[in-house]
């Protein structure tokens, strides 16, 4: 067999790629930024990745979860005796067992509580009820069938509008003092009086009720864990692919009352996250409790249905929106939102922001007034509210504002690009403070919009649309211009459960001049092993091939809050640049000794310090590294060794932006939307590795196509989840994407406050594309049939209903 002799096993140490192609050495690697193939590919293309389900420990047992068949029901009794009698079953855990461990309920990121296993009531369809541990995975599933639960079914609420009705059944009767289904107090941003004044003075007002429907991030690898509590030492090793390993460790320490120094989280390779792997799920706590109870490692891997039906969903924002104009320019926006959080408020965002960054809703426009308010309700649906490839509700905000600009353009009878061009924040207005308090760092919106129109041949498209219309064909052109605030965030006002949203980095340059850089960020496919090596390379002049990027092991990496909200480059990337510069400064001290001169007299060029005015006299970083570890006569105050630590506290978010144009054809007979072209101009500041950036954009665009055209988690009146498999929850395949590929363009407006001028890009495409596509579909229907709005997803039955004035199929 042709594979490498030693597989990765489950040891993160294997990530240390030795030299040699099969370990990820890239032949033409740039010393710094630029196109570079990925180092991590070497193991993945050989089938040697090391994902959750690949973890195997001696004596490992397998867990499975019994889930509720009802959305809302009282539990009278749970009989586990038959399951326990199964010869392969080691233990069955139910709520009252967890109570003795103090683990029946767990805190959520949003200061709510969530049942780990339902004891009193089940509150959503497929909620966790019991946890079976058996010697093999098939037997664990068998044993689930042997558990007998007696339920009294209660009426369920799945419609957020009805959740606050006075006669609505109370979902959270577990919470002392809770008398209604309000999940958190009304939250608002912007000056309401000023906004009302702007509306009173407006020429034109557009109103829409817009639903950003419940969708799901759906990483191709589901969630899971292997918990390994060592009964002899009290050491708990947790193998779990998650996006924020350090924060998880702290949470487990708090939840389980375990000493934090005894908890080690090992994230090996992760098969995608997209926000779904940010929260702590009941299954994780069950696996940990199971390992404590059984005294053996316990593996729990959810199946796809469990992933779709119970783990972090996204969106579910119902937005009553108004936008107004005066003198042909957009002047105001107000929006009243109901946020459906499901049965527990486990929405994942910076804790002081209960609606995330939704108040970035003024978008890319220079408005006179804006106000938004968000009311959060409980329903009998799965908990979540994670940022599906999005920085904390910015996708909802951008969807809303970009739909509303199109709606307003429709009412004003102007071209939607024209209205945007008139209303954009101008490049000379940056830094720009918005009506809701954000300070945008930099941008040139007009330039990006013009470039997108040029690539698309916008005039030509509008002409083609008219010609087609005359022939009875339906074609739509949709615009979206987004500004995203990413890289949360400044510790003075952003935290998660009190933990400042900073990231650490540690850099060690070894005596041979090779380096190891350790991150608190956690890749789920973004290519950190390559791009973070490139940052060090850019700063120190060491080849990325000679820099090992370490992540995914809390014992071996510095503290930080992880990867989501496009944080990696803006925050962790900042930390890596800063730590590299610290090492460079330290290298300068050594170079001064080596060159027998003063440090101030040295100048840096990539890879070496040299004497100013005498560039021949210099020391390479490699020779400095050797010296740092071997010199025997260091002066007082200068420590040997060449390494450093840094914690990066971003002074502000970064604000990437982009101009997107979608071109669709709609079948007038069936309502099927054909995604013909997609033009994406992105400005994410400085690009570390353009290949990786473009890969991120492609991926995000397809997730946007999914949300706009296909993806929705829907429920029937009884609260049954109707989309708990890939049969019913549709992800785009290659066929749903533009046949000849995406058309990308770029402008570069460096971030003024980021050490390397980068802004982050992972989520931009997924934020900008849903409104572009929805606008295109509505554009097609408006020109052909006068239809002014439809909610996503625009799949054939719904589009057909919208264009024929029929009621939408239920959701």
């Amino acid at each position, binding site marked *: 067999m*042709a594979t490498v002799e030693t597989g990765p096993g489950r040891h993160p140490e294997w990530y240390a790629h030795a030299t040699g192609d099969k370990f990820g050495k890239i032949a033409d690697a740039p010393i710094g930024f630029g196109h570079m*193939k990925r180092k991590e590919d070497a193991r993945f*293309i050989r089938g040697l990745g090391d994902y959750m389900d690949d973890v195997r420990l001696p004596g490992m047992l397998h867990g499975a979860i019994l889930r509720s068949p009802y959305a809302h029901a009282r539990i009278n009794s749970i009989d586990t005796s038959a399951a326990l009698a199964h010869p392969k079953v080691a233990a069955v855990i139910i709520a009252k067992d967890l109570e003795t461990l103090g683990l029946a309920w767990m805190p959520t990121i949003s200061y709510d509580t969530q049942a780990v296993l339902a004891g009193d009531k089940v509150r959503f369809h497929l909620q966790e009820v019991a946890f079976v541990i058996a010697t093999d995975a098939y037997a664990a599933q068998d044993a689930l069938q042997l558990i007998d639960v007696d339920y009294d079914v209660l009426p369920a609420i799945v419609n957020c509008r009805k959740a606050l009705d006075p006669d609505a059944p109370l979902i959270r009767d577990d919470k002392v003092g809770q008398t209604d289904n309000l999940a958190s107090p009304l939250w608002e941003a912007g000056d309401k009086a000023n906004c009302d004044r702007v509306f009173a003075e407006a020429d034109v007002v557009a109103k829409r009720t817009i639903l950003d429907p419940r969708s799901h991030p759906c990483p191709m690898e589901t969630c899971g864990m292997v918990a390994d509590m060592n009964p002899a030492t009290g050491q708990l090793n947790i193998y779990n692919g998650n996006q924020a390993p350090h924060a998880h460790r702290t949470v487990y320490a708090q939840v389980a009352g375990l000493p934090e120094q005894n908890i080690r989280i090992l994230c090996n390779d992760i098969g995608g996250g997209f926000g779904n792997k940010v929260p702590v799920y009941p299954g994780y706590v069950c696996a940990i409790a199971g390992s404590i109870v059984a005294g053996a490692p316990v593996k729990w891997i959810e199946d796809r249905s469990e992933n779709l039906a119970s783990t972090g969903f996204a969106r579910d924002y119902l937005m009553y929106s108004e936008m107004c104009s005066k003198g042909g320019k957009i002047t105001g926006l107000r929006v009243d939102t109901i946020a459906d959080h499901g049965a527990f408020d486990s929405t994942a965002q910076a804790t002081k922001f209960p609606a995330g960054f939704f108040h970035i809703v003024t978008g890319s426009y220079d408005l006179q007034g804006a106000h938004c308010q968000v009311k959060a309700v409980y329903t009998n649906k799965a908990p979540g509210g994670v940022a599906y490839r999005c920085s904390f509700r910015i996708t909802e905000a951008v969807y809303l504002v970009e739909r509303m600009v199109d709606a307003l353009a429709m009412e004003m009878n102007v071209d939607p690009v024209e209205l945007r061009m008139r209303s954009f924040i101008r490049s000379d207005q940056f830094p720009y403070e918005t009506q809701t308090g954000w300070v945008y760092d930099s941008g040139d919106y007009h330039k990006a919009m013009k470039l997108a129109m040029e690539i698309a041949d916008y005039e030509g498209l509008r002409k083609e649309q008219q010609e087609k219309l005359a022939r009875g064909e339906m074609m739509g052109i949709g615009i979206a211009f987004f500004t995203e605030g990413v890289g949360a965030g400044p510790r003075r006002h952003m935290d998660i459960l009190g933990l400042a949203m900073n990231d650490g980095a540690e850099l060690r340059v070894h005596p041979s001049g090779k380096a190891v850089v350790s991150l608190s960020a956690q890749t789920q496919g973004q290519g950190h092993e390559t791009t973070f090596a490139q940052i060090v390379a850019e700063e120190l002049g060491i080849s990325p091939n000679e820099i090992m990027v370490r992540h995914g092991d809390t014992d071996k990496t510095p503290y930080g809050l992880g990867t989501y909200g496009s944080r990696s480059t803006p925050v962790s990337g900042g930390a890596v640049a800063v730590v590299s510069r610290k090492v460079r400064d330290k290298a300068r001290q050594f170079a001064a000794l080596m060159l027998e001169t003063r440090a101030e007299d040295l100048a840096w060029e990539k890879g070496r310090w040299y004497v100013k005015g005498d560039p021949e006299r210099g020391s390479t970083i490699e020779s400095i590294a050797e010296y740092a570890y071997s010199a025997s006569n260091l002066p007082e105050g200068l420590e040997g060794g060449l390494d450093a630590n840094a914690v990066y506290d971003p002074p502000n978010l970064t604000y990437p932006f982009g101009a997107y144009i979608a071109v669709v054809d709609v079948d007038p007979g069936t309502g099927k939307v054909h995604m013909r072209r997609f033009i994406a101009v992105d400005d994410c500041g400085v690009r570390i590795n353009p290949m990786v950036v473009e890969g991120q954009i492609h991926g995000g665009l397809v*997730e946007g196509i999914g949300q706009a055209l296909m993806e929705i988690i829907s429920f029937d009146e009884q609260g049954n989840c109707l989309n708990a498999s890939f049969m019913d929850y549709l992800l785009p395949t*290659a066929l749903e994407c533009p046949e*000849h590929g995406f058309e990308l363009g770029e402008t570069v407006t460096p971030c003024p406050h980021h050490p390397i001028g980068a802004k982050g890009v992972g989520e931009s495409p997924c934020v900008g594309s849903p409104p572009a596509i929805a606008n295109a579909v509505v554009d097609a229907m408006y020109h052909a049939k006068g239809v002014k709005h439809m909610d996503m997803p625009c799949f054939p039955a719904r589009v057909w209903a919208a264009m024929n004035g029929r009621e939408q199929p239920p959701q």
Partner: protein
Amino acid sequence: MLVSISINGQVYSHDVEPRLLLVHFIREYAELHGTHWGCDTSNCGICIVLMDDPQSDQPPYPVKSCTMLAAMAQGYEITTVEGMAKPDGTLDPIQMGFHEMHALQCGFCTPGMMSTGRWLIERHPNPTQMTDHEIRDGISGNLCRCTGYDNIIKAIRWAAAYIEEHPESARTAR
């Protein structure tokens, strides 16, 4: 029941439950973890491996290993991602293409995707002339949540071109 399956040229014989799925045989019994799974309903193609029917002269074809019982694979030759490269370690052109064209991000769908890509090239009379639609249609049984597919299509083209230029790299005689 005793099941014997040839995987990557090696025969694995195990006494298994009749209901055991092929994907679990590959992962748990043959201990080849390169083949992953991603759904419960035969939709994602993450679990795809290549299956060769010794009775047929067709090239090995992709099957969803989650949708077959292990017992049904008895007598067939299975190739998983671990068996794609040549015995001397030379990568298969499809593996090179995926790396060259950045056709993978998290890597989870990659083994299945490469298997389907390999088959598309092998079964096509003129693989470098495949249309975009042919390739998209060919991989439409494989979901990828990361890459957006464009680069996967480029990678398959890259491999087809490489095989044309380096006929010795083709795995099957044609």
